[in-house]
């Protein structure tokens, strides 16, 4: 019996707590993140002989270090290194929600996307091609309706599969459908990246390389994420590098 830690992320109002409740039922408890007043909800379920522990991250729009919630979410992903991140996305507000998805992806933890509130989206005449979305993001996408408890089993399946595949380092590789535009994005699972444009990428790539070549840093933090954060002049990221130096 293994314990698989899964962080549940999502923007406010994405229906994160309903998905959380759907997956764990009554098996959950509330604590506080150490040193801060942000609530930390932990729940668990068993699936195919494995125990999956879900940790609810605070609902945030982004992963900067502006607010306590964002810092808490970020620190958890950085330091606790969950096996999988479950990103709850509001299907009716896909564009804005992807903003967080990209940042989660940059943190280098295998991602499962729950496309929530699909019924509402459909009711508004939206049709979302989940297969295509999965292909573009290089992550498994599952449609769910948290309020009606739909998609729970599929989600559990996706989480376990993502965990196993990552653990075995097989590399998923969604087959190319020969679509017209690939946005220059790789379709290998887990290797999706936002293209920050030529000018910035010409700085980011070498910086990322330098970071990944430093054994101490690369053992602790995802190089791509750190490179982006350093360019954003994020004080926390600078501190992290300095701390590595001191150790």
């Amino acid at each position, binding site marked *: 019996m293994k314990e698989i830690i899964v962080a549940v992320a999502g923007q*406010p*109002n994405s229906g994160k*707590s*309903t998905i959380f*409740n759907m997956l764990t039922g009554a098996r959950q408890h*509330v604590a506080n993140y150490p040193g*801060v*007043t942000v*609530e930390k909800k932990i729940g668990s379920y068993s699936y195919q002989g494995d125990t999956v522990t879900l940790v609810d991250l605070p609902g945030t*729009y*982004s992963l900067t*270090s*502006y*607010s*306590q*919630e*964002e810092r808490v979410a970020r620190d958890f992903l950085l330091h606790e290194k969950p096996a999988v991140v479950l990103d709850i996305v509001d299907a*009716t*507000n*896909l*564009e*804005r929600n*992807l*903003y967080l998805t*990209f*940042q989660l992806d940059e943190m280098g933890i295998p991602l499962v996307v729950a496309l929530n509130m699909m019924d*509402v989206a459909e009711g*508004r*005449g*939206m*049709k*979302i*091609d989940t297969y*295509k979305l999965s292909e*573009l*993001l290089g992550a498994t996408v599952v449609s769910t309706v948290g309020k009606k408890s739909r998609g729970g089993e599929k989600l559990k399946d996706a989480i376990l599969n993502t965990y196993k595949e990552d653990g075995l380092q097989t590399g998923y590789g969604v087959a190319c459908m020969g*679509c017209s*535009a690939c*946005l220059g994005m790789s379709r290998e699972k887990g290797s999706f990246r*936002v*293209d920050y*444009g030529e*000018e*910035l990428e010409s*700085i980011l790539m070498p*910086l990322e390389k*330098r*970071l990944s070549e*430093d054994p101490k*840093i690369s053992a602790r933090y995802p190089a791509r994420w750190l*490179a982006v954060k*350093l*360019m*954003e*002049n994020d004080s926390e990221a*600078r501190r992290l*590098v*300095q701390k*590595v*130096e001191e150790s």
Partner: protein
Amino acid sequence: MEMERDILNHAEIEREKFLSQQGTTPEKVIAQKRYQTAEKIVELTVKREKEIYRTLTDKIDQVVCHRFLGPIILLGVIYLFYELSIVQGYKITAYTWPILAAFRDFIASILPSPGFVFDPLLRTISLGVVDGIAAVLNYIPIFIILFALIAIMEDSGYMARVAFLLDRVFRYYGLHGQSALPMILSGVFVGGCAIPGVMACRTIKDERAKLATILICPLMNCLAKIPLYILLVGMFFSAYKGIIMFFISTITIIIALSVAKILSLTLLRKTETAPFVLEMPVYHLPTVQGVLRRCLERTWLFVKKIITIVMVVILIVYLLMTFPGIGKDRKVYYENQTNHQIQAFFNKIGKDNPYAKILEGSKLTEFAIYRDDYKKAKMGAKSKEAKRSVDEKFSERNGEFFKIVKRGKYKIDGKTVKDNYALKVNKEYKKLNRERNRIKRDIKEETIIGSVMGRVGRSLEPVTKYAGFNWRINIGLISAFAAKENSVATLGSIYQSPPGEEKKALGDRMKEKEKDWTPLHALAIILFMTMYPPCIPTLLMVRLESGSTKWALFATFYPIVLGSIIAVLVFTGGRLLGLSGMQAMVAFYVFALIVTVALGLIKSKDVSEEYA
């Protein structure tokens, strides 16, 4: 290791280069590219079969966020919130209180029994702590309603609209639109409670606004501040009740806004603020399960954390107000007084009274407890049925005592008899009991005056006289620290009516003793009370929500300083200018208003809009 420093330097240089070459910051480009990528992905994956331009949410928002209708609806919602949680919640506590009272009685029954005038220390202290905890637990129905309502507001999406509507005013004072709810709960309109108020600060995402709100919540008018207002207003401003209550409730908001602004310009200057992301989520119908779960979770968290800490803190405050206690010779003095009264009682009922033997020695104390219990039980019994069962219970507990408390009228074999001996004992005991209570009150008063807190109150008199407070008021105000309800209760025991005299209302007794008092004195006390430091449960909540003891201590001391400054300003200033109470009130109001408006005009920096 130089490597990491090199990397940081490298990143720094590259960033500078980018800034000068592109004329924009990398973070702006990064945000922009993320949005563009999101847009592209949506373009590729989402097909809109039919465009629905105006969703239900848009329609609701047209009304709810309307320039004029919006604030009106908000007022209605705020009123409903306040009515349901505070007003109706208090009504529910009328049903839950007996449970807590029963718990207290149970604890009382297992503790060493009380004495005739001196209660065992263990009993006094334990009951003090139990009373303190019960006072906090009593708020639970209010919390449950409150948390449920907050969960509904959050889940439905209305909370975001509230923030939107109020942000326009609040942002000038370093607060956030979401600061409104905590302030309302704490008692913007006279009568709230800062505990749920501080707790509701959780929803504020902006660190600085959150801390500022937590710190000003206790300045609002909680229910426990009201009795002292009523007492003093009744004494000195009875002709202007409406005006002064309006003054009290609005001056607190005015001062609170100023405090928030000053804090965010000074102490909280370096606290991080979140860029204000104004997002209007789509309205959802909250689920019963979701709301219930969240509300029970939060209530449980409260009970768990507060109860454990409250116990310790109340114990400490209680000890500070009790120790060192009255001296040995004073104790002997009170014992003699008591014995003298008891002797007088036995002399009056006469040696031939058969009940004299029954009440001899320690039996008298036993009877005193029996009678207190009986009175209490009778008070609790409303119906005839209940009264009869109380009688049955007590007649079983002690048949002879029962005859006395029944004033000599009881039944033997179904016949009602009139026992004149018992009646006589009953009458005389009543007098004795009055003396007993007086002595108990005297002991209590002397204990408070001689206690650590009482000494502080006396030693402060040379300073507090500039605010118009004498040592009696000092002690009253200090005793309010554990819970503000205490202020009037303590004043009540300080300004007792002399024994034997007719009982007068507290206000009249105070007026009699403080003949030189003017409305200016009362105004200074009222203003000090409005700025009174939070009660202990609130302080613990501040600690919990701000995450640091430092802020809890700050929340204790700044109101004392502020309240003292205001009280001195009004009292000494008013006296120097020869103002009447009402004139001083108006002058201070205008002054505070000007300061607040002026502060609102100062621009605070870094209202960043990077993500806008």
